[in-house]
């Protein structure tokens, strides 16, 4: 094997006239956690559905665990585990019966099934719930059970479609712990998310996907470093004019206007650039009300590459948990 567990070349997928996936190519290496980060409707689930052979590939080619998605779908199916975006557990069966059923449909021998169920109940901390009906589990437990189910057959690749959507941050971080543990055991993980932190903290590599296209791929570090060492956030009495002034400066690479502030990417050391920037703006009679210097975050990366925020109204979340060095006047 080449070391690539997933190889996708020029994949396209359309629902009728709606192009959901538009000529994307990427590879996922053996043993890594790879994320698709993108907004609603970006085409994340569609890619998963094609790679898991739930939808027939239309254009391009894809290999999973060395098998051709188009021609060897049965082998692909035997190589993978899936946690779907939508919950799909049998509510009338218990936790262990749900796992048992999964083992049976993959023709696992009885002894192996029993052993694997024990291991997975332990991993997902559901041992006390083995005889609880699906409908009596909390949302987080249901997701954990689905994770356990996805791992039942010891798949080479685990696909997770927005595994932590709707969870509080503690529950989400526990899920990350499980996924890291699974990775340590050698399973390759492909996940989709629209949580910046999930992509940032959990993934080895990230592809930002928007409108069915991959915009950029790299590790969180690489992506952030491409934006320069530091970012300056300015709030002024006239952002529009201030932005124009900034764009004319040599030290400034790009300026993005947010609702309230200007995001300034600079090409050199912030300690030299900042005084000059502030002076130029003041010269035009514009007041600077706030200055923030911070390291680029995944949000910045996302906004930079897609030209928009991930979701409307998430400004609060955006400023949580970032290293900021405030310089106020």
């Amino acid at each position, binding site marked *: 094997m080449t070391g690539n567990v997933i190889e996708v070349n020029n994949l396209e997928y359309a629902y009728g006239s709606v192009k959901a996936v538009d000529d994307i190519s990427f590879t996922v290496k053996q043993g890594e956690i790879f994320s698709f980060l993108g907004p609603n409707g970006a085409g994340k689930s569609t890619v998963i559905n094609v790679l898991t052979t739930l939808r027939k590939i239309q254009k391009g080619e894809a290999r999973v665990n060395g098998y051709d998605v188009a021609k060897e779908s049965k082998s692909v*199916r*035997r190589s993978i585990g899936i946690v779907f975006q939508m919950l*799909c557990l049998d509510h009338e069966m218990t936790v262990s019966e749900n796992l048992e*059923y999964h083992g049976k449909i993959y023709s696992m021998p009885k002894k192996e099934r029993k052993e694997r169920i024990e291991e997975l109940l332990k991993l997902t901390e559901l041992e006390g719930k083995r005889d609880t009906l699906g409908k009596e589990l909390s949302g987080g437990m249901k997701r954990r059970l689905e994770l356990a189910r996805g791992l039942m057959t010891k798949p080479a690749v685990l696909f997770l479609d927005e595994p932590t959507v709707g969870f509080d941050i503690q529950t989400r971080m526990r899920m990350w712990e499980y996924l890291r543990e699974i990775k340590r055991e050698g399973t390759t993980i492909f996940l989709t998310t629209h949580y910046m932190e999930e992509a940032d903290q959990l993934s080895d590599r990230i592809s930002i996907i928007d409108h069915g296209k991959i915009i950029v791929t790299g590790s969180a570090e690489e992506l952030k470093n491409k934006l320069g060492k530091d970012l300056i956030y300015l709030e002024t009495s006239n952002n529009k004019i201030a932005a124009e002034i900034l764009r004319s400066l040599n030290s400034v690479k790009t300026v993005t206007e947010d609702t309230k502030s200007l995001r300034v990417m600079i090409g050199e050391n912030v300690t030299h650039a900042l005084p000059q920037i502030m002076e130029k703006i003041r010269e035009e009679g514009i007041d600077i009300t706030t200055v923030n210097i911070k390291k680029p975050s995944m949000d910045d990366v996302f906004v930079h590459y897609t030209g928009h925020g991930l979701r409307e109204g998430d400004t609060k979340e955006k400023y949580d948990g970032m290293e900021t060095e405030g310089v106020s006047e």
Partner: protein
Amino acid sequence: MSFEFRAIYWREMLKFFRFKSVLFSSLIQPVMWLAFFGLAMSDSFDQLTSLIPDIPGVPKVDYLSYMGAGIIAMDVLFSSLFGGTTLMFDKKFSLLRETLASPVPRSHIILGIGLSGVTKAFIQTFIIIGFGKLIGMDFFKGYTLTETFIAFSGIMLLVAIFSLGFLFLSGSIAITIENPEGMQSILTLLSMPLFFVSNALYPIDAFPAVLKFLSMFNPLTLLADGIRYFSLGSNFSVMGNHYIYTTADISVSFLGLIFFALAMLSAAIWRFNKVNI
């Protein structure tokens, strides 16, 4: 050779025995039919027809025994026709996703559900025959042990083929349709003509010619005739009508039902291969 259908079967049976209310009603329903409808009707029918002279040399069968065969057929019809409904809910609540994404061939899903439906049909048939004997149904009268065994196996075989046919039909509808109300009304619509244009509950000799002709193709008639052949013999009279079943008749029952089941199987496979998630 793969056996994944056993997993589907296992899940269906697990849930059948888990829902106590469904289990209870599916077991009690045939008994109620026999007890209320059967006893009430047979008394009045037998009274009405007591004046009709016996046909000399032909064993007479009472209405309860005649109808018992029809009740088996009807009960199996209803439970099979509605048996696919689980599939619609499985699809609706995306439970089917897990199975559809697995290496299980789609034909195995159909087969697993079919076999679980047949098991339920067997249980019901068994109950009807058992309870019917208890309240005086003349099934297997004068048969030796071997004859009874053969007759019983024959009935079960017919019930299995019939039940599979309707389960496949029901499954094809369930996998195609989106909402429970739609499913319900289609099934009700289907069951009406099946139910009335058949000889399950009353002889069809007095039917208008068109209905009589149509009823010959009704799987319910084929099954009811088959059960009567095995349980009541090939030559009897009921309510003044003389019934003679020849080997040809029973062969028609078998072949007709097998044809029906195979046609429904191909419909089911066709519909299942179209399912997208």
